[in-house]
Structures are given as C-alpha cells and as structure tokens.
C-alpha cells in the first residue's frame, strides 16, 4: 500500500469513497507516523484510542450510506480548542490537567462532518508567541531544515512558527491530514509560511470562538491548516457556522468554498500595498512577491498598486489591544476552580503564587503590558488610541476595496523559518516583528491566507499572503490556487 499519509484530504476523501481503504486504515497510518515523529514534539497529547473508535464509527456510517464532508479524515487539534473528555491546556502549566466537560463549536462541527481526532497539538502558551517556544510542553521542531550552500543538510533545529506551531509541523510532516489553528495576529499564516502549508484566517465572526481558550477576543479567529488550497477550502466549509453561543459569530450562509478552487481569476483586481516594502526585507522575499504578481498577471488578474497608509501603526497598536484583552481574559486562571493552585498564606498570596508558577514569562509579560495600558491615567493614551488606529487600518482597506480591489497580495512573513533560540533570547520586539505583515488583517477583521510560493536559498519554504474583503474567502481560495498551481507544492524530506 502507498503511504496513505501522503494523500491530500481531497484525495483521501475520494479514495475512501472508492473504498480503496478504510478510515481505520487511514487513521492507523497517521497514528504510526505520529509515533515515529515524536522528536518533532508536534502533539502534546495523542488520542489513539479515541481516533480508532471515531474511525471505526466513520466506517460504519459510510457502510450505512451516511457520508459527511470530512468522513474519515484524520485531523489534529490545536490544544487551545476545548475537547470534551480530553485534556486541554493551551500549553500552559496553569491549566494543569484540565479536562473540559464540553467540546468547542468548531471541533463539534468537524466531528459532525465525520472527521477523526488524532490528538492535541502543541502551540505557544495561550497562543502567545511566533515560534512555538513559549509552550509549557517544549519547542516544536520544524520538519524543514536548512540546506548549506554545498547542498548538505544543516541540522540546526528550526522553529515551525507560532503560535500554531504544532499544527503547521504536523500538517507539513504528514502527521495529520489537516489541523485546526487559531490566529490572533498571524498564528495561522506565519507558521503556514514557515512550513510550506496552506493556512487561512477567516473573517472575524466566520467561525465560532465558543470553546476555544481566549487570547484576545476581538482578534481571535479559528482556521484550518492544510497541504493544499483545495483542502483548506474543504476544511473551512466545516469550520464555519453561526453559533448562538458566540454573539460575535455572523449569520451568513457558508459558501461551498471548494467550488471556488480552480475558478478563473481573469479580471480580478489584485492590490499591491507599497507600505509592505519594509526596511531590511530580504531580497528573496521581494523577489517572491514579484514572482507572485507575475503569476497572477499571467492568469489574467489586473495588478494595481495601492496604499494602506496606516500599516506602520498596526504592529504597535496590536501589541496594545491584544495584551489588554489578554490581561482580562486570563484573569479567570486564578487557581480557585480548576487547573493549577499553589496555596499561599492568604487569597492574594495564593493568586500570586499560582499565577507566577502557572504562567510562562511571555504570558506574564503580556499580562503586565495589558494591565498597564488599561490602567487609570494610561487608558486613553494607549488603549483608546490603539482602537482609533484600528479604525484607520480598517478604513485603509475599505477604501481599497471600494475602489475595486478584490484581494491584496503581500509577503506572509519577513523571513523564512529561523532557528530555535535565535530570536527568543533577548529583545521580545524582534520576535513581535515576525507578525508585521499579518497583524493588520486581524486588526481589520478581514480574511487572510498564507499560501506556499517557493523556497529560499536555504531550501526553506516561503509564503505569500492574500487578504480579502470581509466574508469573501472564496476569492482568496480562487487566487491562492493560481499561486499553488504556479509554485507547486512543498514537502519536507523526512529525517525524523
């Protein structure tokens, strides 16, 4: 039998339909791959028994003629999603062995469509990080490695991006057919770019946030990782729903995204924002961007230079809004009702000891920043101003879209994957700068997608980002597929 884990979701779906193999066989192939890939540290909890039961149930449904959109497809779940009866930690010590008695809406949708859960995926603690180095479960190793100029392999371990680093690594290394991620400032798109996978952050409100551990409520959005644009489209269809339990979810019909894949982009207007040419950006990234523009032009799109003048304020404003919301969202982790408790002399001492022991340094830093910017006397200068900037950023995009732009093309990241420890030692701002191209999308609530577009000189994948109109994910899939067709797909050589 061929390696079943090499199949895309669409291929596996068709093969399962032809009864080439069963969901149980497909699941077993993934479980074996996961067991062999533990050095990558992508999973923080494997759930093989549950996976086998779900796969068997899927086969039984198929036998009775009941076939969901993701019937028998094995997926990994970022540990930020609450999964009923399965430990959920947000990769933080503070949640300890917390096991939710409920299932997030997004994963409920996935299982309702027949998908199989393989386990819980590593991520940055509370999704705060761009390299998966803040996880309480340790670093995730990117399945990609650098090539030296002589073509030999540099064994330096690289980060898979973050915060959804377990998701990106698992999908790239064929440890899951697809995975769930969350994106607050780039946590899907940046790791997708670092691993040669496709990742989409849908429009804010497209997916329910219910049951997903909150980082920054006004920015958080769920989205899928996949190996192809088509697979991402298939997954998003199942992810998305209006949810009465999340009043920020939006009641709009969910389109058949897959049907957008392969549609011509002739006549589509693609905006190229000049503000995304940042100082010190590697020439390789510039070249990749130009290449992307040429591919889209060749496919009949109209390329138009646009201006998004407030772009430069997006990152600083983001690092006010996101920590502010986080400082409040994380107040519930107090050692009183669930998770870790370190008993102190009195209640305040218990809070302090519990939270000092439970939260890692990056989370503590952001709680401190958030608390500061919301404090009396600073609120107007920081939080209120950041919200004004946010309005201006959104307006920049509104103006471009109103002028006829259908999608915006930018680089996804300012570099390819870096080495573990290279950016996590000193100045946190150096790490934050990784999100420079992605945070604007969260601030504006727009859909954004990262699609692999090539390899750099070190043989590492690079991605391009597409930004769309609110709730127009279809155009992103349509345009991304053109890039995918032109660039090809990228798979790391197995070394683990």
């Amino acid at each position, binding site marked *: 039998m061929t390696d079943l884990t090499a199949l895309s979701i669409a291929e596996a779906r068709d093969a399962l339909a032809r009864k080439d193999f069963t969901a149980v066989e497909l699941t077993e192939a993934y479980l074996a791959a996961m067991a062999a890939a533990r050095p990558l540290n992508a999973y923080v909890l494997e759930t093989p028994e549950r996976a086998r039961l779900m796969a068997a149930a899927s086969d039984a449904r198929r036998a009775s003629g009941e076939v969901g959109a993701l019937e028998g497809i094995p997926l990994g779940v970022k540990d930020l999603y609450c999964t009923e009866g399965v430990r959920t930690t947000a990769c933080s010590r503070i949640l300890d062995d917390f096991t939710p008695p409920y299932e997030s809406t997004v994963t409920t949708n996935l299982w309702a469509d027949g998908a199989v859960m393989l386990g819980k995926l590593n991520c940055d603690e509370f999704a705060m990080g761009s390299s998966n180095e803040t996880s309480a479960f340790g670093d995730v190793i990117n399945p990609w490695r650098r090539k030296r100029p002589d073509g030999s392999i540099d064994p330096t371990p690289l980060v898979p991006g973050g915060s959804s680093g377990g998701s990106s690594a698992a999908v790239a290394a064929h440890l899951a057919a697809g995975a769930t991620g969350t994106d607050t400032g780039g946590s899907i798109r940046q790791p997708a770019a670092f691993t040669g996978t496709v990742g989409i952050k849908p429009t804010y409100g497209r997916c329910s946030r219910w049951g*997903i551990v909150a980082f920054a409520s006004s920015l958080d959005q769920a989205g899928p990782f996949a190996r192809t644009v088509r697979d991402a489209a298939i997954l998003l269809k199942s992810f998305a729903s209006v949810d009465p339990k999340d009043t920020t979810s939006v009641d709009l019909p969910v389109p058949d995204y897959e049907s957008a894949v392969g549609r011509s982009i002739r006549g589509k207007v693609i905006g190229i924002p000049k503000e995304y040419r940042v100082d010190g950006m590697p020439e390789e990234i510039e070249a990749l961007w130009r290449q992307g523009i040429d591919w889209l032009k060749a496919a009949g799109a109209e390329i138009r230079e646009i201006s998004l003048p407030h772009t430069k304020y997006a990152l600083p404003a983001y690092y006010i809004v996101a920590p502010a919301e986080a400082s409040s969202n994380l107040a*519930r982790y107090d050692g009183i009702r669930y998770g870790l408790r370190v008993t102190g002399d009195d209640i305040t001492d218990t809070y302090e000891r519990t939270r000092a022991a439970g939260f890692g340094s990056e989370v503590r830093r952001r709680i401190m920043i958030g608390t500061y910017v919301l404090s009396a006397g600073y609120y107007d200068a920081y939080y209120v101003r950041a919200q004004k900037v946010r309005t201006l950023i959104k307006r920049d995009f509104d103006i471009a879209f109103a002028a006829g732009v259908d999608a915006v093309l930018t680089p996804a990241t300012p570099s390819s994957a870096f080495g573990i420890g290279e950016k996590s030692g000193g100045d946190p701002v150096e790490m934050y700068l990784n999100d420079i191209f992605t945070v604007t999308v969260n601030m504006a609530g727009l859909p954004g997608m990262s699609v692999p577009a090539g390899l750099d000189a070190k043989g590492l994948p690079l991605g391009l980002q597409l930004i769309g109109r609110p709730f127009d994910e279809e155009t992103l899939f349509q345009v991304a597929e053109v890039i995918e067709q032109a660039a090809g797909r990228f798979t790391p050589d197995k070394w683990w």
Partner: protein
Amino acid sequence: MFTAFRTAKPSQFLKGATGDWEIIIGLEVHAQVASNAKLFSGASTTFGNAPNHNVSLVDAAMPGMLPVINAECVAQAVRTGLGLEAEINLKSVFDRKNYFYPDLPQGYQISQYKNPIVGEGVIRLDMPDGEVVEVGVERLHLEQDAGKSIHDQSPTHTYVDLNRSGVALMEIVSKPDMRSADEAKAYVSKLRTILRYLGTCDGDMEKGNMRADVNVSVRRPGGELGTRCEIKNVNSIRFVGQAIDYEAHRQIGILEDGGSIDQETRLFDPGRGETRSMRSKEEAHDYRYFPDPDLLPLEFTRAYVDELKAHLPELPDAKKARFIADYGVTPYDAMVLTLERASADFFEAVAKGRDAKLAANWVINELFGRLNKEGHGIDASPVSADQLGGIVDLIVDGTISGKIAKDLFEIVWAEGGDPRVLVETRGLKQVTDTGAIEAAVDAVIAANPDKVEQIKVKPTMAGWFVGQVMKQTGGKANPQAVNEILKAKLGLD
C-alpha cells in the same frame, strides 16, 4: 457628578456646635432583575437552591466560554427606564470591570460604564407633609452580580457559592438630590414601589434583591460641597436612614473639630448602628474598565422601546392622580393606596360602584391596619375585595351599623363567608323597626329616672342614653332611629 444644588429646608438642617449643616445624599441602588435566567447565561435564578446549583459553564468562567445577553433582562431594564421617565439609549456598551476575588470567577464583572442602557430620569417622592420632592436619576445600567463568599463555615477555608454569580442587576444611580434621611428612605421606598409595579424587580431587601450604596456628605447650608463617603450594601430602608444619620453626625463632628473628611468606602453595622471604614481612596481598586470584546454593543430600535412602553402598567404617580380625581380620596390616602399595585387593585375592586371614600376608609384603616398588625401582605389577605365590598354595601344600605360592620369584618377575617349571608345567620341585622327601638328606649328611661332628670339640664347626656339603648339591642339598632326616638321621648329638640 455633583451638579444639583437644591438647598434643604431649614427644618432639615442638622444643628452642630458651630451652626447648621446640610446633608447631601445620593444613592446607588442595586436591584436584581426579575428574570428566570441570568444576564449572560441560561442558568436559573431560583432563590434558595443548594449552593452552586444554579451554575453554568459560563458562570464558572470555564475556558473558552462566552457571554450571551439575555433579551428578557434587556427588556426589563428598558421597562424600568420608562418607569423612571428616563432617556432610553438605543445603543449601549458592556464593559469589563476587572478585579480579583474568589466569588468573581471571570476575574471581571460585566457592567456598563461609559454608555449605560438608560440615561437621566426622575423619581417623585411624596413626603408626609404633602411636599413632592423630585430626585433626579443619573443613569441605570445592567451588570452581573458576583457570587457569595462564605467565611464562617470553616476556620481555615472560605467557601464560594456561585448561584448568584452572573444574575442580572440594575444599578440605578440617583443625583445627589436628597437632603435628609427621610428623603433617602422615601426615595428607596418609592423606587421599590415603581420596580414592583413594573414587575422588573421584586424589591425583596431581605433576600438582598435590592440594596443601596449611600453617598453622604455635609456642607454649610447652600455652601461648598463637602467630601463624600460611600456606605456600601445597606439592605433595609430603616438602615438607610440610620446609616445617614450616623454618618452625617460623624462627618459634622470631624469638621467641627477642625478635621477633614477622607473620601472612603464605609460599611454600616446594623448591630451597633454605626458606619466604619472599609477602604480609603488610596486603597481603591483600579478596575481597568474597557469594552467587553466578547459582546457587541447592545442595540435596539425605537419601535422596540415603544412596544414595551405600550404595555407598561399604570405607574404609582399616575394611579395616585387618578384615584384623587376619580374617587375623590385625599392625596395622602391615594398615596397609601398606591404603594403596592396589589393594594391599589384591591381598593379599586372594593370602590368600584360604591362610596369610594368609605371604601378607602375600610381598605386603609380596617384592612391595611389589620394586615400590618398580622404582618401579612395584601396577597395573603383573608378578606377578599368582594367580601370587603359586601360589608361596605351592608353599611351603605343601612343593613348594619358601622360598629356591627367591624364585628362582621372580624368574623369574615377569621371564618370567611358571604357578609350578607353572615348578617342573616348571625342575626346582625340592624333594627330599624321603630316599635322595637321604642320599647328599648322606654325600658332605659323607666330604669333610670335620675338620669332623665339630669339630661334636662345637661343635653349632652343624650350620648349615654344612646349607648344604653344600643346595649339593650345588642348594637343592632339603627343609631339614627335611636337618636330620633330618644329626642322625642325625652322632650329634647
């Protein structure tokens, strides 16, 4: 916030050693919204359930849980705003008030800070001297209640009951328009009446469903405003009065000794009748308010408000005015009758088609008096409006005297039954047969020749004769007829 500068009447001034002082009072009342479910979760609000029985995943602030606004609580807040003749804000915002405490699972209370659902309104107080004092309402906003920390169950642990956590409260903030403890008490009482009329809060202060934070400061009459202290969580109208009296005198004492008032939060100790410091301004929390990103701004249409307005019940002020106009009762009686909607309804049922003043007398003096004595509410009255109306009918048509009516009321109270039937079966019917009365009069005159002599010089003795005749007839004689016959027989004009 201190914008109102009404000066108290000199009779309201407090006398200090160095002259008169005026008290400035503002109230923040927390009223629990009458609803079956909590403000942002579907959990029940039933009182008295076992600890932590009424707790949903949202109330316990489990990871990933999100609040969903309860539409009925919104409607109740709008109804209350309309009842306070207040501005209704078609768009309002929920904010987070951040602080740590074990009975606050989220680590923040969802409240409304800058943009409340209801703006300025007014409450009119009917003071006993007939004066109507208008107190401004600054705002009303919706917020979550916290849970309850129980410190007395264990020497080493505090227990937390989250049944209350997330229950909807309306915080109703007055302007600093009150100038005496009596006005403050009248304010709470009137607000409670309005809320109960609207059905938006049961006003049960014993259960903590309505409680007041009292802001008190003192100043020289009409002078510069003083520094205020806030007395937290006062849970009865009587305590509101006591707390203000104590606090005003405390502040005056300090000022007259040359001291100054620290702005602080204080607690009222009902046992000792005094307030004591809880925390000073320096220790005050920084609540880090910001808009709750889990909730969109709360928006509704004018049509929605109009629809609620169309279905509001008649409110106490309007009802009082109508009672005065339609039934001719005194303003004081009208106020008493309209304190509770059920009492007013009861009165109207008795008064309908009858002598309204007589009905008011019977409802207020006999029924309310008796109910108060027994500690019953109108809902638990053993005498129905039909029965009381029947008694009034019997008085008006001359079947019984007022005195017998009181006895009949006692019988109906204790045993129930149709008053008209009782009058027959118990032989309470008034004797109007002049022959029978004449016989009784004759008997009294014959038995008391000395008194007959006395009355000739002292006509006011007539009352004694009437009493004797009534005694003879078991109180059933028509007093009018007794009077006339007596006058004739004794030769009085």
